[in-house]
């Protein structure tokens, strides 16, 4: 039996022990490490992980470089990462987690289908959603809290369509596209802009995302006798389409958008890739000296250049945008809410970013950037034109 005089002492000792235990709990450790958080949801697994994983690495490099220079007003920047598999449902789960569990006022995401799926959550919860890399033109109409930091398809595909007719002198074109969001919208943009420039679309053929044989669609295109063929596909199907095209004796020049700007296309096609025209929305080593350092860093750490180099440039820059937004609200002594971060975005408007240069975010939720055209010449991508 405990002596009555010892009971208060024991109670006090228990309380002291409990308090010291709490001081070592994860909760208090988190409070001691005060970080500036933002979310990033990208495909780390699934069919799109080829690009997603490298884009995440690039964003992590950006965060590391910002923190190496002192972070944001002395606080480290922290990225909370969730896998979406480029699947809209998983994207929704990720957005809900960012909002309800992590209580983040801002998150970044990509892949058009995911960006569209999570937009209602961003608008309802007044959390700022930044799309980085998705190019569906619909992104500009998804609501007050959804902004893109990447030029939409109506920038590069439109520029390519106009260039094909106006500069290259092609009077008629065929369009082949993968039957998904990116494919359908991009193909429609090419068709609209090519016709607007004065050209004629003589064939407009879609193919299923799971198809392995494109003979039927290719023969329809061949029968239409176009002067140029634009393919709005993905890196998984683009080389097969071009390979089967060349094997069927179709020697017409081919163009594609930024998804075709990948060394794997040249590796798989060999001589069949010669003359392929692709777009890039990020400056090359010739246009921005930082890009050479970025590529060398990849070669040192990963023994290769990144898949989808232009996209990784944008992802590297995205933490810098987040950092600038937080600096603005700290300077204006505003709480870190989605509403205030959105105000910051519209107030700052122009960002000078290390890998992609000047970026201007307009009130209509779009950005404007130069379009870089490249072509395959002697087994390598070389600059063809820059369209401002």
């Amino acid at each position, binding site marked *: 039996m405990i002596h009555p005089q010892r009971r208060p002492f024991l109670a006090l000792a228990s309380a002291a022990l409990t308090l010291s235990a709490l001081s070592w709990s994860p909760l208090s450790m988190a409070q001691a490490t005060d970080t500036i958080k933002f979310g990033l949801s990208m495909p780390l697994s699934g069919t799109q992980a080829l690009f997603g994983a490298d884009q995440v690495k690039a964003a992590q490099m950006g965060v590391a470089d910002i923190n190496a220079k002192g972070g944001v007003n002395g606080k480290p920047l922290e990225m909370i990462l969730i896998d979406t598999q480029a699947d809209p449902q998983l994207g929704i789960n990720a957005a809900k987690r960012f909002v309800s569990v992590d209580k983040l006022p801002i998150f970044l995401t990509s892949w058009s289908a995911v960006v569209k799926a999570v937009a209602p959550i961003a608008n309802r919860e007044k959390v700022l959603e930044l799309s980085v890399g998705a190019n569906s033109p619909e992104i500009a109409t998804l609501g007050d809290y959804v902004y893109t930091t990447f030029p939409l398809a109506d920038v590069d595909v439109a520029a390519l369509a106009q260039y094909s007719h106006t500069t290259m002198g092609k009077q008629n074109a065929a369009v082949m596209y993968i039957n998904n969001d990116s494919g359908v919208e991009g193909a429609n943009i090419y068709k609209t802009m090519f016709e607007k420039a004065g050209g004629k679309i003589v064939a407009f053929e*879609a193919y299923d995302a799971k198809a392995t*044989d494109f003979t039927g669609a290719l023969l329809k295109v061949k029968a239409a006798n176009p002067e140029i063929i634009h393919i709005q596909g993905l890196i998984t199907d683009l080389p*097969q389409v071009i*390979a089967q095209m060349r094997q*069927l004796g179709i020697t017409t020049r081919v163009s594609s958008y930024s998804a075709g700007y990948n060394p794997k296309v040249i590796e798989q096609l060999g*001589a069949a890739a010669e003359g392929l025209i692709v777009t890039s929305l990020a400056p090359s080593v010739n246009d921005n000296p930082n890009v050479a350092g970025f590529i060398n860093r990849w070669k040192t750490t990963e023994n290769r250049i990144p898949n989808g180099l232009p996209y990784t440039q944008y992802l590297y820059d995205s933490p810098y945008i987040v950092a600038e937004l937080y600096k603005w609200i700290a300077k204006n002594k505003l709480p870190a809410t989605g509403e205030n971060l959105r105000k910051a975005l519209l107030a700052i408007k122009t960002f000078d970013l290390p890998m992609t240069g000047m970026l201007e975010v307009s009130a209509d939720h779009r950005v404007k950037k130069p379009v870089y055209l490249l072509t395959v010449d002697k087994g390598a991508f070389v600059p063809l034109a820059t369209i401002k």
Partner: protein
Amino acid sequence: MTLSILLQIVWTGLAISSYAVLFAMAFSLILKVVKIWNFAQAGFMGLVFYTLYVCLNILAWPMWAGVLLSFVVTGLAAIAFFRFGIETLRARHSSSLTFFILTLVVSQFMSYFFAMCFGTEPLTITKNIMSPVMLVGGIVVSHWDLQALGLTVLTVLFLFWVMHKTHVGQFMSAVADHPGLARLYGIDVNRIYLYTIALACLLMTVGMYLFGLKVAMLPNTPLQMMLLAVIATLLGGMGQVFGAAAAAVLLSLLQSLSVFVIPSEWQSLLIYAFLFMTILFFPEGFSWTALKSWFAWRRA
């Protein structure tokens, strides 16, 4: 549409059907003799491909050595799966649903395993997917087309010879009809299962070799290809291995020729339409007897 376009589509459709035929026959053979819906076949197809990829691209082995090793590795893995998976469930008298779940789980596990090891980058067996072509009567014929059709015909003929002209084939038919009775007659049923698995692995190896030369592969690609194999098995008649082969050719040609009547992006929809109709009207698999019974029922 001109005659040359029609002939081109028929030729290319036939060539593309080559690996579909082999996968359908492998699936149907296991169903016929071992009596399981082997959805784990997708995982083993992936194993063939990635073993071949490692042999050619990392170890720099010659093609024949890579193909041989792929066959051996897949055969051993399949035998281990049957010995420790299927036979365990059989010993416990598990329901058919349990078998179904096991085979699906194995194929998914292998798909994720390959994604972990090789990433989700589209890979081909050879770095370059271009195949030399020639014009034959106005039809473009590639070296791959000839190789695919030649190897498929040879493999089918070999299987026909085994199943109809050898004791192993006779015993496989006996085991397929009634394993208990076959055992009573002194047939080593387990050994027949092993031969069946080996033959199925041979079909998968040849099929994935052809596929990998032409198309880029992702870890979950074999799962998508299984759909046509399953439908061909149902359409060809349950237990009819060569019926499944004919059905696979028919489905591939129909898919290719459909481009004249439906937009090309809907070609895959045809497969699902066939699956729906097959399950609805021929749940036990298509057979002339079933068709006659259905017409009789309609008349009644």
